[in-house]
């Protein structure tokens, strides 16, 4: 099975100290198929935004990313029900592998969300909307105005124009590492100004 190959292929060489879903996964795996609906819904609620984010990164389309999240989580829950992923620490690898395959399918136009929903909708938890984080544009404009000129230009060229670090560096006669430093400094200032520094 494809899912089994994915589980084996990806090693768990990743920092999983913040992976908090082990207990949920164990309860789903221990229950008879479909016997832990609340745990499945909770797992879905936690993982869906992360998978959607993967979709936004690779598909650059919110609707396609929402479809991806639905598809990948349905397959993941099915795999857990069928006992094909027993080690909770293997789940991130499994989800990532499933994401990759689904992105390829979506790009080929081969993935049909409706088909999957027909198959599983009655058994698996319903998905509600997955809203993206919204930003206060007025506040952002205010914070952008306070940036040094160089940082504002680098951020606008990078994010609006999708210019690579190399293109921005060529335009400004700087090294790519300099551009990255300016970009990072600008984003840090923005985060602080927006009140969201980590």
């Amino acid at each position, binding site marked *: 099975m494809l899912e089994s190959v994915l589980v084996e292929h*990806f090693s768990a*060489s*990743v*920092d*999983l*100290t*913040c*992976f*908090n879903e082990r207990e949920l996964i164990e309860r789903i795996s221990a229950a008879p198929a479909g016997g832990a609906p609340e745990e499945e819904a909770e797992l879905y609620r*936690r*993982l869906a*935004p*992360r*998978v959607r*984010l*993967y979709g*936004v*990164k690779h598909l650059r389309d919110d609707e396609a990313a929402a479809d991806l999240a639905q598809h990948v989580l349905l397959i993941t829950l099915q795999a857990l029900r069928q006992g094909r992923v027993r080690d909770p620490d293997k*789940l*991130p*690898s499994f*989800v*990532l592998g499933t*994401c990759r395959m689904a992105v390829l399918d979506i790009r080929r136009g081969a993935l049909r969300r409706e088909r999957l929903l027909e198959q599983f909708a009655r058994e698996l938890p319903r998905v509600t909307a997955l809203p*993206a*984080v*919204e*930003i206060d*544009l007025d506040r*952002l*404009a205010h914070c*952008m*105005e306070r940036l*040094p*000129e*160089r940082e*504002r*230009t*680098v*951020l*606008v*060229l990078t*994010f*609006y*124009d999708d*210019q*690579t670090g190399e*293109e921005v560096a060529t*335009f*400004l*006669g700087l090294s790519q590492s300099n551009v*990255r430093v300016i*970009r*990072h400094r600008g*984003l*840090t200032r923005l*985060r602080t100004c*927006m009140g*969201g520094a*980590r």
Partner: protein
Amino acid sequence: MSCEAPLDHAYLTSYWLGELPPDQEELIEQHLLSCSDCSSALEQIVAMDRGIRKLARTGELRVIVSQAFLERLSAEGLRVRQYAPPAGGSVACTVTSRDDLLMARLAADLRDAGQVDLIVCDAAGAERGRLRDIPVSLVANEVILNEPMHIARALPVSTHILKLVSAQDQSEQVLAEYVFQHTPSDS
């Protein structure tokens, strides 16, 4: 429980922009799928990206941009009004309700100028604003200034002088100046 090994913001930004090699990208993605904290941090970067895109498109940022930026705006169907007076010259200008963005194109060779400031002066030459240490392109012999639309639309009949000055060691030298004779538009 919060993440004990949070991914660095600069690293996450590089990931989001597709700058990392595939093996590092894979490690980051596995971590993100297992970590709500770092996933939320990436969400914030994505939100910032989208916010900056929106602001750039509305023309409300005063920012130095590139020719490629203008081409992208045009490709998106936005109407960009541009004025390009020669150095030492003047131009009659306006902005209409149909314009989406307004650009001043200031031709100048600034390759050896060091730190360059852009000064906005009134008709009498009094300084009204200054952009310090503007980014200067080594491949384009001009400075393209995106002027906020809400400011331009509110201007009465007026004259504005833009000056590019080389600012070194507490002294400054005017490199070029440009006069904009603004008249409000009826449309």
